[in-house]
């Protein structure tokens, strides 16, 4: 780490208040200036807002060759004996003259910029220079250290250390604190923030009547351990990763297995997977040496994390593939850096970041990492058992070879005869480029992902005659997707190559499978334009599959061989599908055929056999062995081999799969050049090696593990020295509990983000989070156990007037529930909530207003089958109107903080949406069915469900008056049996502000 701990916090803590509360009052008198001007809290915000566009880190837009973002540059002697800033001497600092100038040509910031400094801001700058113009790194780049716990007078108000930090500031400002909320308020608040659902009446009764000192803590533990907890917190996370199940654009193609990622998150939050592990799995879950196996079913959880990357938009037939790739990778960088580091690295795409110390080379270091990754269909149900079975299978194959070799050599040795094997030298003037040759034993440097293609070609696989128990022959070499069995997913991909020749031919055979040319990582292959890049293989005889790639000369491409096919970009693997490939080459003019085989055999049987045992045979070796076998087949003792063969078949069967997702896999390492001004058509000569952000890592430290190096990227992010990772996450948790982060801009901790309201508290929590191995549940428990969380909403007029936004947390901030909680709450209260967890999403309900291309043929159920909102499908082009209206973000980038709008469309929805009315009716029916309850009891029950409290006497009276009035309207004689009357009542309940606000 470049920057290291200073005592910035102590000062910052003292200073925040003066800034937060008084800055807005435009107080210009010097008396109101801080005693000690702090760079991070007072000065930098002024410079960022007014100066850095022209005098910041980006050299391309720098004016007058002056930068004010580093001490050295700002205080350097300039031409004409001038100092922009001379520490201690405001009178000799040109900056001070310029900001006070009367001459519009000299005045800074220039009038044309529409920026201007207030008198107070000018005074702060002057005082800061006078006090020595001390410079500090941006607060977020200084590693957090455990701060001292502040001392407070009001010790009895402290439930845990969180309170000390909050209370210290409140005492300093002499703000009155709100009392602890009543138990009804508490349980409703706690249930909603931890589980997203209203509390169950039984739990309310229990809690309210539990007078033990740990009643609240028991409740906290209950909700933290509830299965509903994961559903709530997974959805928060899904806002960060632009979770969607389709790719949007023209035809809204599917993101295969997206829901598997949703379920992965729910399980992970419920199991309290340590945060660093969660980070690593999402960034590099495919590369972890020891993946996390699901405790119940043994599945590989880690690999599902990489679906994080695949929630991308996908364009139908982009005309320019280079631009398309750059847009995709830009989004990957944007989401990755915002989600885990709260930095807007994507701003550095075209130029150095205007405000943050993020040079454009940082962006292209990450670009190379993303470019070196490949999207790949994977087995969603890969288990530890499969991994073990695969290992056993490979052992058995080796064993069979050994046994066979022994049997062979023990038999009567054959006379050594000169075999007439065609040996051909590799012709140097071939006129073609060999992209891959699988007729020998190795995979020609191609990458085999998944199990289908294994790690070798089929060369030398022994074939036995079960009748005669004899070794009959050895397979020739080819890459085969059914080496183990059919119904196993996998892909074989060539290294990247630049297209320089007109044609690519792949010699292959197979059934219901495809060979694809992937250009610029573009996989949504589709007519028009790209259809021919996808070659169907459906012939059991060897054929040459040729594609004319001349339109894409100069592009970077790779070949991809996959058993099965994509139907509207949804992967399918039919029962008997397979593909086998002999070789692939690129050429101009005519196809060179047949392609000569390379290598030779030394014609020594025992040496050849022993090479075979070691899997080092050449194609000629196998030809030679087959010649020998044709002359005299070898008898192999049956019992042992047969047992092994039988076991091999069983194991192969156990490895078949049927559920798929698109995850990430390593490609070949590509370093990216810088795109000049962000244009992928104008490239720098130099490329940038894979590495992490320069401000957050040792100078010049580049990644070396190869491929995409994503694992090293993940390690850099979870490195305990990283100043951002823990802060960013605890701040997100705080945001979701309190409605506002300690740093309000939860996705931007850069210079343009907001400063923390409680910097010491933030650091305390960040360090604690690390000490507790990133346990989200422990951290949440600490937060909700504080008195700060348990306070009533602020109603004190002094507190409201002095701190109207409740920055200092003198009480709890009133907030509206999120879209999901409103809908789920409605289902819970109406008794329709289906608690079923996991699985494919419920189709989105399509209204008349949801039209356009890619519209599904059938609409989903109006009520989403009563499932929680997290289980309802997210189609990019057909987003749920209810979710949108109540501010669920459009999934295109990271949204750690939702908008909270207040619009008539929300009222219209609750007043007139068929879903709301339907739920009201079902709830009414349920009440009417409860014949044992009288009207009052029913009202009380509704209040308990909807508002988690009993109704007051006057509320009951009003409700009864309303019911009687509606009975007249409906001409109902008996209120207790009229569904229509109760429906009206239930409907108003859903419309009540108390229902959609957390109070």
């Amino acid at each position, binding site marked *: 780490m470049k920057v290291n701990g200073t005592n910035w916090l102590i000062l910052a803590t003292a200073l925040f208040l003066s800034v937060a509360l008084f800055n807005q009052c435009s107080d210009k008198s010097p008396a109101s200036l801080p005693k000690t001007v702090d760079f991070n809290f007072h000065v930098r915000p002024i410079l960022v807002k007014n100066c850095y566009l022209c005098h910041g880190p980006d050299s391309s837009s720098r004016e007058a060759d002056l930068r004010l973002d580093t001490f050295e540059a700002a205080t350097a002697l300039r031409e004409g004996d001038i100092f922009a800033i001379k520490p201690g001497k405001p009178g000799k600092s040109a900056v001070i003259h310029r900001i006070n100038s009367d001459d519009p040509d000299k005045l800074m910031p220039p009038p044309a910029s529409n920026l201007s400094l207030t008198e107070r801001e000018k005074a702060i700058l002057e005082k800061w220079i006078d006090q020595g113009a001390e410079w500090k790194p941006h607060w977020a780049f200084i590693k957090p250290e455990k701060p001292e716990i502040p001392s407070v007078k009001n010790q009895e108000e402290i439930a845990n250390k969180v309170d000390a930090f909050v209370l210290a500031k409140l005492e300093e400002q002499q703000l009155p604190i709100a009392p602890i909320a009543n138990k009804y308020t508490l349980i409703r608040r706690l249930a909603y923030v931890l589980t997203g659902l209203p509390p169950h009446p039984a739990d309310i009764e229990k809690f309210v009547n539990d007078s033990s000192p740990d009643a609240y803590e028991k409740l906290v533990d209950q909700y933290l351990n509830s299965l509903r907890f994961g559903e709530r917190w997974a959805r928060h996370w899904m806002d960060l990763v632009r979770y969607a199940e389709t790719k949007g654009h023209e035809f809204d193609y599917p993101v295969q297995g997206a829901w598997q990622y949703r379920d992965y998150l729910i399980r992970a939050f419920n199991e309290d997977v340590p945060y660093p592990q969660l980070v690593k799995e999402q960034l590099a879950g495919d590369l972890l040496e020891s993946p996390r196996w699901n405790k119940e079913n043994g599945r590989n959880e880690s690999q599902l994390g990489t679906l994080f990357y695949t929630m991308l938009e996908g364009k139908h037939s982009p005309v320019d593939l280079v631009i398309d790739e750059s847009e995709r990778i830009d989004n990957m960088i944007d989401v990755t850096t915002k989600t885990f580091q709260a930095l807007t690295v994507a701003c550095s795409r075209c130029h150095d970041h*205007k405000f943050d110390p993020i040079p454009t080379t940082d962006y292209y270091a990450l670009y190379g990492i993303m470019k070196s990754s490949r999207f790949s269909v994977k087995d969603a149900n890969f288990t530890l058992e499969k991994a073990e079975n695969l290992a056993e299978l490979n052992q058995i194959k080796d064993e069979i070879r050994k046994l066979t070799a022994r049997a062979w050599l023990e038999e009567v040795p054959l006379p050594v005869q000169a075999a007439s094997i065609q040996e051909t030298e590799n012709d140097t003037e071939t006129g073609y480029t060999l992209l891959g040759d699988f007729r020998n034993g190795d995979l020609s440097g191609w990458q085999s992902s998944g199990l289908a293609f294994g790690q070798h070609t089929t060369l030398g696989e022994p074939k036995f005659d079960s009748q005669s128990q004899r070794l009959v022959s050895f397979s020739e070499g080819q890459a085969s997707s059914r080496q183990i069995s059919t119904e196993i997913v996998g892909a074989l991909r060539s290294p990247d190559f630049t297209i320089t020749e007109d044609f690519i031919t792949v010699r292959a055979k197979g059934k219901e499978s495809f060979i694809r040319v992937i250009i610029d990582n573009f996989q949504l292959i589709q007519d028009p334009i790209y259809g021919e890049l996808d070659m169907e293989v459906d012939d059991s005889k060897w054929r040459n599959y040729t594609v004319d790639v001349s339109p894409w000369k100069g592009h970077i491409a790779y070949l991809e061989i996959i058993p099965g096919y994509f139907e509207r970009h949804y992967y399918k693997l039919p029962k008997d599908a397979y593909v086998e490939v002999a070789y692939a080459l690129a050429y101009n003019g005519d196809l060179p055929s047949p392609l000569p085989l390379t290598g030779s055999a030394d014609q020594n049987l025992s040496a050849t056999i022993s090479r075979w045992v070691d899997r080092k045979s050449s194609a000629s070796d196998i030809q030679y062995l087959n010649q020998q076998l044709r002359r005299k087949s070898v008898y192999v003792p049956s019992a042992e081999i047969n047992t092994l063969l039988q076991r091999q078949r069983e194991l192969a069967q156990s490895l078949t799969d049927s559920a798929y997702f698109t995850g990430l896999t390593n490609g070949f390492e590509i370093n990216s050049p810088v795109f000049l001004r962000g244009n992928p058509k104008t490239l720098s000569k130099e490329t940038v090696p894979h590495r992490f952000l320069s401000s957050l890592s040792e100078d010049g430290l580049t990644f070396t593990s190869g491929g995409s190096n994503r694992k090293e990227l993940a390690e850099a992010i979870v490195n305990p020295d990283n100043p951002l990772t823990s802060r960013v996450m605890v701040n997100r948790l705080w945001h979701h509990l309190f409605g506002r982060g300690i740093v309000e801009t939860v996705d931007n901790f850069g210079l343009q983000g907001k400063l923390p309201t409680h910097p010491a508290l933030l650091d305390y929590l960040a360090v604690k989070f690390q000490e507790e191995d990133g346990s989200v549940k422990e951290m949440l428990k600490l937060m909700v156990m504080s008195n700060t969380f348990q306070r009533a909403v602020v109603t004190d007029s002094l507190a409201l007037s002095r701190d109207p936004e409740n920055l200092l947390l003198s009480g709890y901030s009133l907030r509206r529930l999120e879209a999901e909680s409103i809908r789920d709450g409605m289902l819970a209260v109406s008794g329709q909530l289906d608690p079923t967890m996991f699985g494919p999403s419920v189709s989105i309900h399509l209204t008349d207003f949801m039209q356009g291309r890619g519209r599904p043929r059938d609409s989903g159920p109006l009520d989403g089958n009563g499932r929680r909102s997290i289980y309802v499908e997210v189609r990019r082009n057909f987003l749920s109107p209810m979710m949108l209206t109540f501010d669920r973000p459009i999934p295109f980038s990271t949204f750690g903080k939702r908008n909270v709008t207040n619009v008539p469309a929300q009222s219209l929805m609750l007043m007139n949406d068929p879903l709301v009315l339907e739920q009201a009716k079902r709830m009414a029916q349920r009440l009417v069915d409860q014949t044992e309850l009288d009207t009052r009891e029913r009202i009380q029950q509704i209040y308990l469900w909807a508002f988690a409290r009993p109704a007051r006497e006057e509320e009951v009276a009003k409700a009864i008056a309303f019911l009687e009035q509606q009975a007249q309207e409906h001409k109902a004689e008996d209120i207790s049996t009229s569904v229509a009357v109760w429906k009206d009542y239930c409907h108003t309940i859903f419309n009540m502000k108390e229902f959609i606000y957390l109070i």
Partner: protein
Amino acid sequence: MSGNRHIIHQSISRRQMLGACGSGFGSLAFVSLFGGLGAACQRAEKLSPPEVVSGAHPHYIPKAKSVIFLYMDGGVSQVDSFDPKPRLAQENGEDPYKKFKVDNTQFDNIGKILKSPWEFKQYGECGMPVSELFPHIATCVDDLALVRSMTSEFPEHTNANYFLHTGSGLQGRPSMGAWVTYGLGSENNDLPGYVVLDGGLVPPGGLDNFNSGFLPASYQASVLKGQAVPLANIKPLDDPTIQDSKLDYLKQVDQSLIGKLGHADAVESAISNYELAYRMQASVPELTEFATESKATKKLYGFDSDDPHTRGYAAQCLLARRLVERGVRFIERTCPSVEAVRCDQHNILRDGHERNAHAVDQPIAGLLKDLKSRGLLDETLVVWTGEFGRTPFAQGKDGRDHNPSAFSMWMAGAGIKGGTIFGQTDDYGYRVVENKVSIHDLHATMLHLLGIHHEKLTFHFSGRDIRLTDVHGHVIHDILA
């Protein structure tokens, strides 16, 4: 505050809006480094929530109060409509590769040079040539400023649509209508400020073309359909008296909550939204009640046409005028779903373009004339454009592929110099050779006419002050009166 209003206000940002009033445009959404602008400002406290919150000052005296954006979904062929190219007839059937550099196209099926199947004639005092496709619009040419040098950056529908609507080719950015209402608010208390009249075709890219992106959801379009229930959830499912009594009871209960909380902006705003929503239940359906419109007016729009698509589009155009009359700020018209499917003729150009043009031609001319006769054209900007143009060579035999390198767009109304032709394409109408105009320029000009300086209308998101025009855009002064 010039009567410009945000009818739809946010509890959270209300204070920020008010606090930002003094610092002018753009800062409206400026996020202070120190939490909430002017949160201590006294003025905020004095405003009770149901009060209408004024928007910001326009930067200039606005020429236009409203915009009607006539979106020609799929891309009308410029060489068949407003940009005649005799050379296509001379070289009909010849190989385009021998004539000029041919770009890759969406369908990669490049045929021969294809002459326009339609004749052009000069119209009006200005003598602007218009093809037979648009005989009615042709009668309005003296009110039109035609730009023949439009360009886009994307040859695919979805990206080009996002680009045309949001200034960015990617999903998720705020639509121009959202920007305009964010900047100016609405002038009507009972209707949303940004309305999309869904004629039947939602453009590729979906409803996100009309969304508010990272702007608050308050600014997203309300999609109105020409049907019994024109807006989602606008029709009460209850009997009116039932609903009234529910709302009365609701109000009582909600008010007592306010009493308990003392002071809660957000809740108060939410309560007042019910009043607006309730009024919208009446005011929105009233929009489509055309009984008060004269026969002559209806005829002018094409209500008596034999073509059902013309009749449908005519009703929507009349609706657009009624929205303008009621102070709605930004109205977009999407295309009718003609059997041939949008103006996107990849084959059988002749039939498809003819049918699409027939559906919109008379209604659009009727709209222009009706606005003019009512004195509304002076304060309404009408914009007619597709997301890109089409190739001068055939796709296959008789279609035309997408062409982002040149297309024609016209504007009429407020602040527009009628009878103008701006920009020029090459002899084939394939590329722009003079006065190139970008989508950003179009947006800058539209904002300009609304009184907004496009560089000053910003919203802070993702570390940047983002504009509708990104870092580009020049007002097309030559077409302004």
